[in-house]
């Protein structure tokens, strides 16, 4: 399923998210199960399936990492079930440093500035990766797409790290 087609967008990494949300609502109005509450079982089932597809399409296009993954999949580069890991040593060193910082949070007397600092570093690095990703996806060259796949992998690492930071933050409040 090409989600760009479903939402009538040309496949591109930069998309108008407000327009995406508007089209999502229009599609929902057409197929949502609540429009078929009084209809036959067949129609209800069909509506649930189509709505699920539209929901998935929206989530995919809305999220930069998933959008990039979807674009790459449409170009024949499937990242969804892969086990390839990032081999960039510098990147891995940085990851380890950040992970150590995460562990320090729970021992810290004043954790708030540490948390805020990490959020900022993460955001800055993610923005950098995303910018590079956008440029690589715009390219016509297959070699660039493979590099784009590497950026996606790194962004996934960052998303995990980000989750762990919010979890550490939660633990402070509980």
């Amino acid at each position, binding site marked *: 399923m090409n989600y760009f087609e*479903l*939402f*009538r*967008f*040309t496949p*591109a990494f*930069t*998309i*108008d998210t407000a*327009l*995406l949300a508007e*089209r999502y*609502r*229009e*599609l*929902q*109005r*057409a*197929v*949502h*199960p*609540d429009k078929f*509450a*009084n*209809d*036959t*079982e*067949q*129609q209800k089932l*069909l*509506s*649930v*399936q*189509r*709505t*699920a*597809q*539209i*929901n*998935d399409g*929206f*989530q995919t296009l809305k999220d930069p990492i998933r959008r990039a993954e979807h674009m790459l999949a449409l170009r024949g580069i499937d990242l969804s*079930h892969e086990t390839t890991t990032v081999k960039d040593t510098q990147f891995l060193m940085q990851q380890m440093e950040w992970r150590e910082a995460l562990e320090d949070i729970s021992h810290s007397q004043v954790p708030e500035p540490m948390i805020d600092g990490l959020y900022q570093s993460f955001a800055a690095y993610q923005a950098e990766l995303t910018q590079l990703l956008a440029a690589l996806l715009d390219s016509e060259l297959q070699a660039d797409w493979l590099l784009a796949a590497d950026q996606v992998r790194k962004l996934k690492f960052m998303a995990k790290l980000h989750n762990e930071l*919010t979890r550490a933050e*939660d633990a402070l*409040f*509980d």
Partner: protein
Amino acid sequence: MALLQIAEPGQSAAPHQHRLAVGIDLGTTNSLVATVRSGETATLADEQGRHSLPSIVRYTQDAIEVGYQAALSSAQDPHNTIVSVKRFMGRSLEDIQSGPQSFAYEFAASDNGLPLFVTAQGTVNPVQVSAEILRPLVQRAEQTLGGELQGVVITVPAYFDDAQRQGTKDAAALLGVKVLRLLNEPTAAAIAYGLDSKQEGVIAIYDLGGGTFDISILRLNRGVFEVLATGGDSALGGDDFDHLLQNHLQQAWQLPGLSPQLGRQLLIEARRVKEALTQETSVLASLTLTDGSLLQHTVTKTDFETLIASLVKKTIGSCRRALRDAGVTADEVLETVLVGGSTRVPLVREQVEHFFGKPPLTSIDPDKVVAIGAAIQADILVGNKPESDLLLLDVIPLSLGIETMGGLVEKVVSRNTTIPVARAQEFTTFKDGQTAMAFHVVQGERELVADCRSLARFTLKGIPPLAAGAAHIRVTFQVDADGLLSVTAMEKSTGVQASIQVKPSFGLSDTEIALMLKDSMQHAKDDIARRMLAEQQVEAARVLESLNAALHKDGDLLDAAEREAIDAAMTQLVVVAGQDDTDAITKAIEALDAQTQEFASKRMDNSIRAALKGQSVDNI
């Protein structure tokens, strides 16, 4: 104003006919029923003018009492008088007994560990008790509105898991009531408020009821209510405040073990004190023992607030998480809405106001707002307002996952994903010739299976015997708009559809439901076969009406042969629907479904295209 009503050809019922539908708030402490009449939404009162019905059911040897009457006997007959049954829905007996509370009931366990109440009428399960609460509400609605209900919307806490939702739906099924939708309570409240104020933006609904706590963050935009995130605790509510106060009094009076009667009496007194402390700064609690002696103790507002402080703090923690999941800050929240009787507690109000930084809305009675929202939704779903642009986009409150090696959870659908949702996951066999595979579905956020709630176990059978790793099984998890899960599976290389037996861990099996249905029929001196026939006849009429309208509108999508085949199947259904063979009707519906599958699919695709018609293909 149309002077002439033109009916669509082939539509039997007058299209402008008002259909009867109600919204039911099936609460932990109180339940309500509401409906839309001549454009006005209101809760319905009983013959004595009382709107709410205490969610209390008493089983005596020869009768079932519900509501106020049952409440009268609560202290004298705690064994047979079930209060707060909602807290037992979808839970295992082990779950309940491992909690901090003690109960006055005598429990038994069903085959799969569900709690059964041992009463003067034998054992009853939470679904049956809930059905008894629904029964008088449905009767009240049918008497007031003067006809049979075409459908109901029942509200559930947003944080209810699959088993709890299924149990609620099963309770309605026992009464033979058609459930148009299970609606999340905070979403219902948002509808009641949102349609009222016509505001647009982000709103937070803080719902603290008798037994459950929910926080939902929604975005309102041109009739679309989009739930961004939801959180909470399906076992935290005003009941817990009562129990804390009960324990406090028990300690103050140095009462050792309590008899069930005295325990219930003390609980009722604790509740009275809690309610009085909403207005007063101190209240005198008293209890008369069986020997006639009178115990007294003064409880101050500060005492009470110290007792409940940690619970209230827990709810604020959930608010913080929900905001973060929604990706909005407290400043961006336009309004906060309070729902549920426990939001009358001053400390709760203060804390919510402090956290969101604005005074919460309470203009609609917090006890009625959920039922009113449900009634508005029921009116639309049943088809009374075809022009309505209201649309609810809800989310799944807890992540769904499956057990993998080592007791770990692999997430399949993460929490706060908009529903309906479908996710496919691929699995492979690990032994040569393996023909079956067992799965365990859990719901929760933790990484270990042991820390999540077990939802269902199922076994895939009929996998073609192949070498290890050669069979690829694609399992699709689908969650519908009610938040209910269904699972289908297929072996990819052969296309063999594997059969699945889903055994709900904390729900009722199909056999148990069929048995209960039979039981309830005997009570009503009704005939199960007659009801099944009537249900199939209604479905047949629905299928024919819907198809006639579809053919009238989009008949040109079919070629002559396709049309002929559909017409023949329709004629067959019309014939058997007029007779009394239930199986024949079911088969004729299935045959017609098969004939129209492609037509229906084409029409759905057409409406998707039509929805974005006129929009340019380009994004920028």
